[in-house]
């Protein structure tokens, strides 16, 4: 399936635009409903991270690219902020009581849990998070 790309200003209010772009690609690719839910959730978590942390001194963009090859939809999310590997963050402690649990930290856990593969690379001054979603394989988490 033909690749598709979109650049969006890194602002939370643009989440809907990012979501629509990726959802449309997922529908054309034929990703099953639950898998698509996981894809869009992982997208939000990565997008929100970039909006919050990638450009502390000003404005910047999020680059989204979708590719469909055989059984796998690959979503790459890139920014031009300072080098940062979101996968280096630890998972949250899911066993803590509600009052003791720190706010946040769940986003990266969702990215890890809901994708079939995930990797980070730094390339051409960009942070690139690459996630793969298999069309044929049910997500064991959802």
């Amino acid at each position, binding site marked *: 399936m033909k690749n598709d790309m979109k650049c969006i200003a890194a602002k939370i209010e643009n989440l809907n635009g990012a979501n629509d772009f990726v959802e449309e690609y997922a529908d054309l690719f034929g990703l099953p409903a639950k898998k698509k839910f996981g894809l869009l959730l992982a997208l939000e978590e990565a997008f929100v991270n970039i909006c919050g942390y990638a450009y502390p001194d000003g404005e910047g963009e999020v680059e989204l690219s979708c590719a469909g090859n055989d059984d796998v939809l690959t979503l790459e999310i890139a920014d031009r902020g300072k080098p940062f590997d979101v996968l280096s963050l630890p998972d949250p402690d899911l066993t803590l*009581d509600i009052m003791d649990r720190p706010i946040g930290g*769940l986003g990266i856990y969702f990215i890890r849990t809901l994708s079939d593969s995930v990797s980070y690379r730094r390339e051409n001054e960009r942070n690139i998070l690459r996630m793969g979603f298999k069309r044929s394989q049910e997500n064991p988490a959802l």
Partner: protein
Amino acid sequence: MEIQTRNEANTTVITITGRFDAVTAPDYEKKVQELIVGGDIRIVVDFAGLDYISSAGLRGLLVTAKLLKAKGGQVRFANVAGTVKEVFDISGFGTIFQMDATVAASLAAIA
């Protein structure tokens, strides 16, 4: 996300529909804060029409639950089902909130 409220049996029922995400979570937090300021600290949230929730949505629920607990209030969730329920479960949030199968069951439990 659409947020509607109504009073039933001395409790405020909040109905949320659509997407509970980073864009809409602040609206929910604001709504609950308004209720708390107005003295409404017994709350049931009806999830029946909710299609999607992310970590920002869960965070909004957690922040407001902590506020309510600090004020001596209560919150219960009704109709958390399907993929939204599964997001609660994989995050561990399924066990830290009070959940009921129906709004009526939540109202009965909170009374």
